[in-house]
């Protein structure tokens, strides 16, 4: 049954880029109207978010008054024009469930950390595991390695797929891993084999995170690294082996999962508060 339409914007402020999604929620039907990701580079995150927000509304033909909720996630506390903020785990779980309704877990691989999240069929978070403060399981690490090897991030995936004899490196420490890579280069290991080795090393960490979070069947990779076909292949290889094989999936909008989840929860929250007869300004006070 169609309910009143709720339009909401989700803004996911990451450490390297900002993702924005516009969601139309009609109760049982939820639609992604718009999605975009933009690198922050050396600008103020709030300025980038403001610019993206204005151009998104213009492109879709909406005004701010049409929106029931502006939801932020990630480091979205910098966005002062938000209605509310949702924590990253909550939004990635919802975004993953929207992108793939069969998934019972997701792994958000961002620039600085990775986080495996287990959820139920309402996208309620049941448990999570995340990498510690070490950077070796992150997108930033992969970006550094690509710079050392003189390849672009876009080339990493396809090069990794060409590997025939991957060379594993340290999965514990980014500094050791980078030293490993320098040694490999001096030993004449091919770029493809180095990259595949790094992908396998990262995949090993992610697989352990997913297992310890309790993932059982299907896990969707969210965050920007889902577009790295080499990493995805390595993760499928590692997670598919062993006693409890896990199916790893990605989606063309995986990078937007946080923003999508934030937008969906924003619309959900707006509807919930409306039903309570309260206002979004400290909804509990009206109960």
């Amino acid at each position, binding site marked *: 049954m169609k309910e009143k339409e709720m339009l909401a914007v989700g803004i996911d402020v990451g450490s390297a880029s900002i993702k924005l999604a516009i969601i139309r929620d009609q109760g049982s039907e939820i639609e992604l109207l718009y999605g975009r990701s933009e690198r922050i580079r050396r600008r103020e995150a709030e300025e980038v978010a403001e610019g993206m927000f204005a151009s998104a509304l213009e492109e879709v033909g909406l005004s701010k008054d049409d929106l029931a909720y502006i939801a932020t996630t990630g480091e979205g506390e910098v966005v002062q024009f938000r209605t509310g903020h949702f924590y990253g785990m*909550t939004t990635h779980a919802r975004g993953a469930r929207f992108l793939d309704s069969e998934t019972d877990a997701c792994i958000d691989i961002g620039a600085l950390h990775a986080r495996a999240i287990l959820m139920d069929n309402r996208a309620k978070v049941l448990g999570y595991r995340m990498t510690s403060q070490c950077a070796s399981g992150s997108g930033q690490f992969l970006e550094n390695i690509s710079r050392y090897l003189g390849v672009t991030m876009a080339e990493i995936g396809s090069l990794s797929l060409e590997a025939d004899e991957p060379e594993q490196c340290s999965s514990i420490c980014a500094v050791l891993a980078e030293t490993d890579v320098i040694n490999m280069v001096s030993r004449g290991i091919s770029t493809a084999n180095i990259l595949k080795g790094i992908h396998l090393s990262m995949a090993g960490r992610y697989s352990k995170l997913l297992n310890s979070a309790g993932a059982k069947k299907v896990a969707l990779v969210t965050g920007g690294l889902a577009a790295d076909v080499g990493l995805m292949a390595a993760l499928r290889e590692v997670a598919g082996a062993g006693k409890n094989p896990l199916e790893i999936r990605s989606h063309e909008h995986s990078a937007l999962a946080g923003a999508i989840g934030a937008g969906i929860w924003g619309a959900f929250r707006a509807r919930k508060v409306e039903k309570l007869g309260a206002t979004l300004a*400290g909804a*509990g*006070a009206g109960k």
Partner: protein
Amino acid sequence: MSTTLEATKDTSPLAKLISDCEELIRDTSLSTVQAWKERTGGIAIGFMPTYIPRELLHAQGVLPVGIMGAGDIEIIRGDAYYQSYICHIPRSTIELGLNGSLDCLDGMVFPAICDVIRNLSGMWKMMFPTKLVHYLDVPQDFHAEMGGEFYRHDLEALSAKLVEAGAKPLTSEALAESIRLYNENGRRVRALYDLRRREPWRVPTAELYVILRAGLILPVEEHSIMLDRFLELVQAEDDRTPMDQARVILTGSFCEQPPLGLIKTLERAGCYIVDDDFVQVSRWFKHDISEEGDPLGALVDAFLTDAFASPTRYIDEDEKGRELVERVQSSGAEGVLFCAPSFCDPALLDQPMETAAVTRAGIPWTAFKFSEDTGQFQVIREQAGTFADSIKLWS
């Protein structure tokens, strides 16, 4: 835009006021107190958190100075006095005493908070034999003829010690006037708490907290003016607009205080703190102390009959946690953050009874611990953020 304390580059009067208060709190050498002593010739007495009758000290010309630990200063000697399973505030207080930061104080009053603070008062006597040291042994019997008599006797003993330390003798007229001044101050504090309950986006807790902390150092007359100014400024802040945040009560931080960064983290993580137990001395009583009749009797009576439920007060036939549940309901809070210092016996011994009470009432809660020198808030941020999400989405 000055929506949070982060507006450090903001030169607005509100930002300046908050920044001044933060500076006052950070100044562990108490230069403001030293300046007051030089200006007035009076004596200054320190006191540990929870409650002491500041009115009595004020009436004798004494500046009561709240010592709420030392934040994140490096502890060198303080650790030698306490085992590793003791909370942080006694070791940081000893550090302040031994490094000379508290030299301008003419004495210390230690209220009955817990055994650790009781022991600290004994240690203080040995470490600073020439200074006034008083353990304020407040009654845990709240009948006038028993606990009332006991407490009155204790206040008279404290008053006599203050005279020995150089304070004026106590007079009923002076005490009545001091009660009037502290009542005025208390009314202002309660008004700010009421405003925050109604419009928490207008009065961020991180700001309210530093304003209250400033009141532990400044004379009450100056602090009341500061409270008026703060109220006026926050009411004029049109840029502060409401956000969809979970309304929570924070409890457990009545003695050792959390770092300011932790309070800011909780607010940024999506929580509107609509009630708390920070700086309890400024809100120990629910109403004004009576300004009629015998003022010392009024002080005693207020302590017996009008104080907030606190883990440091014995509850006889009442139920632990009942008042917390009532505060949640009356403030429109949607959950409780149990935010206690590590190894705080009173807070952590009460916590199972309080969590049971809020669980029975169907109120969501989460619990975490801190120390006044905690510097990493990421884990607490995750916990508070997901707690706020769960309230907004699933409650």
